[in-house]
Each structure stands twice: as structure tokens, then as C-alpha cells.
């Protein structure tokens, strides 16, 4: 549970005395988790769900992991790289946390990447930026969710081989997260015989998607969208308002049909297929308990943002269990977390590759109406998907990171 800051400072004084006198952690000391999330600004909706997911996870564990008490210290990064760095320093140097979870946005994760490295601070990330576990992977960073491209690879394969789409338009937010998803989609879709004939990049804060919807070619088999936050909902709405809904199928990336916006999207969402490492409708005991808790405590279905910290928490718990409840040796803790094999997290089984990214199920989900509300029903599971898809790791990493223009689209039509 989140402690009040004042209480924390008081207990922190005790911890500081220990640190000053140079003694090691007491045997009954709680593990302090530093939690970086966004609580102010445009990204706050997702950031607050992250915090709710983390709080619920700890509540369901009776605020104990591997028999040890937990202190959660939440810091608001305000969605700014500079503030994220200051807050990370605050958690590490002042609050003396044992592990960091977060932050939310890719640029925040990049802003603290070298800091967690030099501080040797075990960090469980949730941000999607591909390179944090690829070309600039760190031994102190692990991501139990997915890279941006990881889910897009899977849905591209599904679109080409099962939905049998041949010609597609891809559209996504014009920033790294959208670029990486669309590039990953393009690569796998074209490697499986499809053709991307059009790429569209609305700016992140596009006031209206009408101009982009009207540019979509009317002779494509389907449209792939990779949007973040509420943009998936806003784009889908415009897509239907302009009469394309029902004529051209719409499929989505990791957050385009997130549970956070699924109810607002209403009837329009029904039938949309998307890929994610999680679904609130995924059926295992851990997830059932988690979803029921989110509905009880916060009246929402958990999605990408709320589930991420719950998976990270499960990884931390597994790492601590492997060490018999110890966490004072950072190197051992990081190693135990990265070699942990978890079978029963809210996303199902998960483990890590040698660069610290999750290998786990990717679910192809279809929005269905059940009991008066939209749910992401799992229609196909790609088991044990790595961030490199089926490509060889060395060959994958030798190429540039996914971007707006890489891999090049060879089949664009004007």
C-alpha cells in the first residue's frame, strides 16, 4: 500500500541512520519499491491505472512478497523526461528503494536508462521502446510486458495468414511508439505475402481524424491502426462517422483497443481484432482475481496499463522467492528476476530472453459484446513470442531499430 510521504520520511530517518552507520539491511526491513508513473498531464489517465494495478496487486498479496513486507513509494514523473530523472534519483538516493517499477512512457524510460545502469538499480520497466531491450539493453533493466513491435509482429502474421488480407493501409501516431508498431507490422505482413500500400501518420494530438480517414484508399482489404491513449477510440469514432466502418475491416495494435477505452468506443468497437500480451478476458485464476479486484476497487476493467505493474510485481515476487525472501544483494535479485520462470501471472506464463525482454503469450483478441459491455475475447494465442518474432536475434539486431522509414515500404501506391 502506498504510505503517506510524511510517514515515509519518518521511517526513512531510521533507514538513513542505518545507512550512515554502514550496517546492512536489517532482517525485518521491508522491501521498498520505487514506482514511477504519470499522475499529471496528458498521460495521467494511463499512469493512474498503472498505480491502481500496482496497489491492487500488493493488496491481493496482503502487502507481502515472499514473506517480506512491502513499502510502495509512488513518484509522479509528470510525463517529462527531466522530471522522471529527478524522481528516479529521489527514489534511489533519498528513499533508498531496492527496486524500481516503471516509468510509463518510452522517452521517460530512455531518460533514466543510463542512470539505473550507473546506479546498478534493478528496474522492471513497462514502457514499450524497442531498443531498451534490444540495441541498448541493460543488465539492470527487464521488461515483463512487451516491446512495441512484439504484438504487432503477431497480428501482422495473423492478418496475412488467417484473415488472408493482401493489401493494407497502416496508420499510427506519429511518434516512436507508433513508428515501431507499424514498422514491425509492415515487416512481418510483407514477409508473409501481404502488401502495405499506404502509410498514414496523424500527429499525436491530432484534433480531428477526419482528414486522415478520408485519405484511406477504398480498395484496401483492411486498415491496421497503432494508437496510444485515447487516440484509438477517437480514430475508430471518426472511421465510423465517415462511413468506412463495416466496409473496411479495422484491426489494431497493442493499445488501440485497450480496456481503458473499450466501453467508450461502444458498438463501433465490436468485431475489431487486436493483439496484446494481456486481455481482461484472459482466463486463468490469477487474472480472474485481478479483474474482479479492479472492478470492485476502481470500477474498471484492467488493460495494458493496469496489468503491466501486476506482471512486474509477479516477477519481483518470483525473484525474491528464488532468493528465500532476500533482496539486499542487487545483483542477485536482478539475476533471479531475469531467470525466473513465472507460470501464473495475470498474462499467463512469462520468462525473459537474454536481453531482459519478456517471452510470453501474445493474444489475438476480438471485441465482443458480453453482458452489456465490450470485452476483448481471446481468439488465438501465439505462445512464447519473443521480441525478435521468428527472426534470428543477431540478424535482427544488426538492422536499424524500427522507425518511420525502416523497414522501407516497397509497395506504396499513390
Amino acid at each position, binding site marked *: 500500500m502506498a504510505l503517506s510521504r510524511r510517514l515515509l520520511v519518518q521511517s526513512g530517518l531510521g533507514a538513513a541512520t542505518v545507512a550512515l552507520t554502514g550496517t546492512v539491511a536489517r532482517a525485518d526491513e521491508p522491501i521498498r519499491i520505487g514506482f514511477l508513473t504519470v499522475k499529471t498531464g496528458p498521460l495521467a489517465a494511463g499512469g493512474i491505472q498503472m498505480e491502481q494495478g500496482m496497489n491492487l496487486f500488493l493488496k491481493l498479496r496482503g502487502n507481502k512478497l515472499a514473506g517480506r513486507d512491502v513499502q510502495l513509494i509512488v513518484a509522479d514523473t509528470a510525463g*517529462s523526461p527531466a522530471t522522471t530523472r*529527478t524522481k528516479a534519483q*529521489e527514489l534511489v538516493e533519498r528513499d533508498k528503494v531496492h527496486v524500481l517499477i516503471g516509468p510509463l512512457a518510452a522517452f521517460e524510460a*530512455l*531518460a533514466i536508462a543510463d542512470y539505473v545502469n*550507473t546506479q546498478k538499480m534493478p528496474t522492471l520497466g513497462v514502457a514499450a521502446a524497442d531498443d531498451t531491450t534490444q540495441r541498448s539493453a541493460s543488465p539492470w533493466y527487464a521488461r515483463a510486458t512487451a516491446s512495441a513491435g512484439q504484438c504487432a509482429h503477431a497480428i501482422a502474421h495473423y492478418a496475412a495468414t488467417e484473415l488472408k488480407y493482401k493489401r493494407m493501409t497502416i496508420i499510427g501516431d506519429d511518434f516512436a511508439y507508433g513508428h515501431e508498431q507499424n514498422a514491425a507490422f509492415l515487416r512481418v505482413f510483407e514477409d508473409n505475402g501481404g502488401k502495405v500500400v499506404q502509410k498514414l501518420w496523424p500527429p499525436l494530438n491530432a484534433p480531428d481524424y477526419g482528414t486522415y480517414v478520408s485519405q484511406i484508399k477504398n480498395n484496401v482489404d483492411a486498415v491496421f491502426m497503432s494508437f496510444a491513449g485515447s487516440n484509438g477510440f477517437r480514430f475508430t469514432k471518426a472511421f465510423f462517422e465517415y462511413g468506412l466502418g463495416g466496409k473496411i475491416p479495422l484491426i489494431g495494435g497493442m493499445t488501440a483497443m485497450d480496456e481503458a477505452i473499450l466501453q467508450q468506443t461502444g458498438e463501433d468497437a465490436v468485431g475489431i481484432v487486436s493483439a496484446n500480451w494481456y486481455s481482461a478476458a484472459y482466463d486463468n485464476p490469477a487474472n480472474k482475481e485481478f479483474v474482479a479486484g479492479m472492478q470492485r476497487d476502481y470500477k474498471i476493467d484492467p488493460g495494458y496499463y493496469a496489468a503491466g505493474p501486476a506482471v512486474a510485481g509477479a516477477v519481483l515476487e518470483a525473484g525474491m522467492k528464488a532468493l528465500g525472501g532476500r533482496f539486499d544483494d542487487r545483483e542477485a535479485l536482478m539475476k533471479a528476476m531475469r531467470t525466473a520462470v513465472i507460470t501464473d501471472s495475470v498474462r499467463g506464463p512469462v520468462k525473459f530472453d537474454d536481453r531482459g525482454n519478456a517471452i510470453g503469450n501474445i493474444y489475438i483478441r476480438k471485441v465482443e459484446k458480453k453482458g452489456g459491455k465490450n470485452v476483448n475475447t481471446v481468439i488465438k494465442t501465439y505462445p512464447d513470442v519473443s521480441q525478435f518474432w521468428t527472426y534470428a536475434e543477431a540478424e535482427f539486431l544488426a538492422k536499424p531499430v524500427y522507425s*518511420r522509414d525502416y523497414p522501407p515500404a516497397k509497395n506504396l501506391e499513390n
Partner: protein
Amino acid sequence: MTGRQLAAWALVALALAVVPVLLPSAFYLGIATHALIFAIMALSLNILIGHGGMTSLGHAVYLGVPAYGVAVMTMQLGWSPVPTILFALALGTATAALFGVLALRASGLGFLMITLALGQVMWGAAYRWVGLTGGDNGIRLSGRPTLFGINLTDAVPFYIFVALILFMALFCLWQLDRSAFGACLRGTRDQPRRMRMLGHDVWRIRWTAFVLAGFWGSVSGVLYCYDYQYVSPAALSLPQSAEALLMVVLGGAGTLAGPVVGAIVITAIKTIVSSYVDRWYTLLGLTFIIVVSVMPTGLVPGIAAWVKGRRA
């Protein structure tokens, strides 16, 4: 310099020097360093606002452009620190020289809008020119440099480095304020027509002030890059420009101490108070409203007038 002034400067130097002794940890010293860097930025903006009467909403350009200069030169071209810093300062100042020509075609609201637009252009370029800037993923620096044999990695040497530069900036701007040029600049602020009638080239005075502001802004940009060791389009964003403007207005435009006080107050609310108060943005807004309504000229002149009033 009179004895009193000398004493004041000694006091400033002493205040800057005792901070590392008083602050308990590297973390708080780091926050003090952030505050001093933003103080330099606010001081540079104050040349325009306080002395020149030109309100700019695009000052983040002179924070971000040199910061990108440092990052690109260090990480992509492998330059050593001294040429990198000189290049970044020249780049920021040259940008100011060019943008000054464009922005000073107008004054007042027009000037504000042009600086805003130029700021957004640079932000857009940083966001889009992925090959050079890394887009919104930004550029990471591999560490702080070693300058003249002193490694700036640790909090204490870096703080001393920044504090020395702030001291220099304060001294230079104080001299500027007292110089003939400073008087001319204030003249163009208060009575531009009269200045023109007296034979002064108002445009050139304003442009020179703009370039000076760009230079000192660039100094803060270089320090910003070395401080956070990361630069992304956020450094060039409108909120960054607006924050600098808030620092100046909150502390007191046109005074030497005002921007420094404003920078310290806002940095403290952003980094320290935000740990205890969830709605710290609201608190920031309230602080600003209260200061503006109780002390319309800013904290420093407001408090000075209050102290004077109590003595009388």
C-alpha cells in the same frame, strides 16, 4: 564597486558556496544544481522581458538547440568537451542572431507570437528529424565530461561548476544593467520613440539584447544537457518556454535576483513539493495567482517593498 556592493557579492558567493555543505545528500545537491541551471535560463530571458520589455514565448530554443548541439557532437561525432561546448554556444547564439532578425520585425503581441512560432518550428524539427535528433526517443549522453582535469560526474564538482557559471552570469548581467547599453535598452523599453528621436538605433539595441539573451540561454542549455545527460524534444517544447517565463514573472522581471528566486521556487515545487502533494500542478497555479495578485511585480520587488514599508 562600493563597499556595500562588494559585501552583497561576497554574500552571494558565500550563499552559493555553503549549499554543498548544508545539503545532506547528492540528491538534494542535484536538485539545487537543476535550480541554478534554470536560474541561468531565467536570467537570460530576463534580459528580454525585464530590461527590453520584449515578452518571448520561445526561449526554450536557446535551451534545446545547444543541448542538442552538445549531444550530437559528443555522441555522433565524438568531439571532445571543449570544442563541443564552444560549438554549442556558437550554435545557440547564431540561432538567436537569426531568430532575432525574424522576431524583431514586430513588437508586443506580434513579437510574442513570432517567438512562439519559431519555438514550435524548432520543437517540430527535433521531433521529426529522427536521423539527427532521435525523434521523441531523444539522445542519451554517455556521461558528464572532464574539463580542465576535473571530472564533473559527481554531484559536488558539477554543482561547483554550475554555481561558478551562475556567479559569472549574475556579475555580467549586473554590469550590463549598469552599462550605457543597459540604459539604452531600458530606454527602448520605456520610450522607444523618444530613443529613436535621440538618434539611437532601437532595432539594433533590441537585436543585440536578443543575441545576448540567446548566448546566456545557450550557456544554460549546455549545462542542462550535461546535467540530465539526456535531451529530447521536451527541452524545446512550449511548456519549457512557458516555465522560464513563469520563473521570471514570479521572481520579478527586471531585477537581478528575481529570476533566480523564481527558478528556485518553481524547481522546488516541481521536484520536492510534488513528492508530498499529489495536486502539485494546482499548487503551482495557486502560488502564481497569489504572488501576482499580492505582489504584481514579483516576489523580489514585492518583498523588498514590504520590508521597506515595515521599516518606515
